[in-house]
């Protein structure tokens, strides 16, 4: 293998990739306020955990469906069984 890469040239590419990814991460954060991040473009669930919004797959062996409505349901409550008060209490307990 005779190829060599100039470190400065490679650094410029990393900066470009980081810039692209950073934009995506910011958008992901915004989008997560109204759409479950595990829901793909076909409204299928890609999560590895159980969620109350999951529905049977349309195809055998396919991904499960998602019943959450974008912008309407607080999807996180379907994941975590602890409410905010209990979570805060547990945090306090852990700190002590």
């Amino acid at each position, binding site marked *: 293998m005779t190829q060599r890469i100039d470190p400065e040239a490679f650094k410029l590419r990393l900066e470009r990739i980081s810039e692209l990814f950073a934009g995506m991460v910011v958008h992901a954060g915004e*989008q997560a306020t109204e759409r479950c991040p595990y829901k793909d473009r076909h409204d299928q669930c890609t999560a590895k955990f159980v969620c109350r919004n999951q529905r049977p797959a349309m195809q055998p062996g396919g991904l499960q469906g998602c019943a959450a409505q974008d912008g309407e349901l607080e999807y996180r409550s379907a994941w975590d069984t602890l409410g905010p008060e209990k979570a805060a209490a547990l945090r306090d307990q852990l700190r002590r």
Partner: protein
Amino acid sequence: MAQLNQIHNEFLRQEIEEHIERPDERQRLIDNFVKASPAMQAISAALIEGEHRLVDQLTSEAIAAGTEALEVMDNGLIAGMAVVGIKFRENIIFVPEVLACARAMKAGMAHIEPILSASGIQPLGKVVMGTVKGDLHDIGKNLCNMMLRGAGFEVIDLGVDTSSDQFIDAVEEHQANLLGMSALLTTTMPNMGKTIEAFIDADMRDQVKIMVGGAPVTQDFADDMGADGYGKDALACVTLAKQLLGVKQ
């Protein structure tokens, strides 16, 4: 001015035609893809589709055929990822598709890495990442992985439901200098502290910097359990990783 029909790859032509509406972005993509060879266009198309095996194959073939690594990055991988970014911003695709494309990019970059190594370019650091035992939520951790790799870190992803022993074994095996733990559930957060204790018990705590994150995790919680740092999101994760390893920002 280059025209859409000058792009060799039909899939790319369709993607631009159907999904890229802003004239400036459309023309920039057309200009870039017209300059790219059919082989680079094929890599971009496979990446946009999230076809990691195909990106792996096409990148391997391109490098073997003597294509410059930077050309593969510019005209194949990064050019494709630019389209992904626009489609995501416009809500045409969502986080799972973005992560599939990032996985495809990683597959392509795997063929660039030996050339980087031969050129004396080392990763910024080796990071072991995982969601803690009992927790199966991985989107946040996967976005962190994407950002870390994009910034030049080598990431060893242990996935979800990772035990203390698995973290310890991975750090030891890969000689990682950084460990990232994620938890989304308040019920699994304590497993971060247990893992840190396991590193102390194994006399390995000084070998690795430990960062934590996840929706319920706070700076106070991270401090209390003895982590070296807390990142509130994937952007903060990269800043923190660089800071912990003393990488100039």
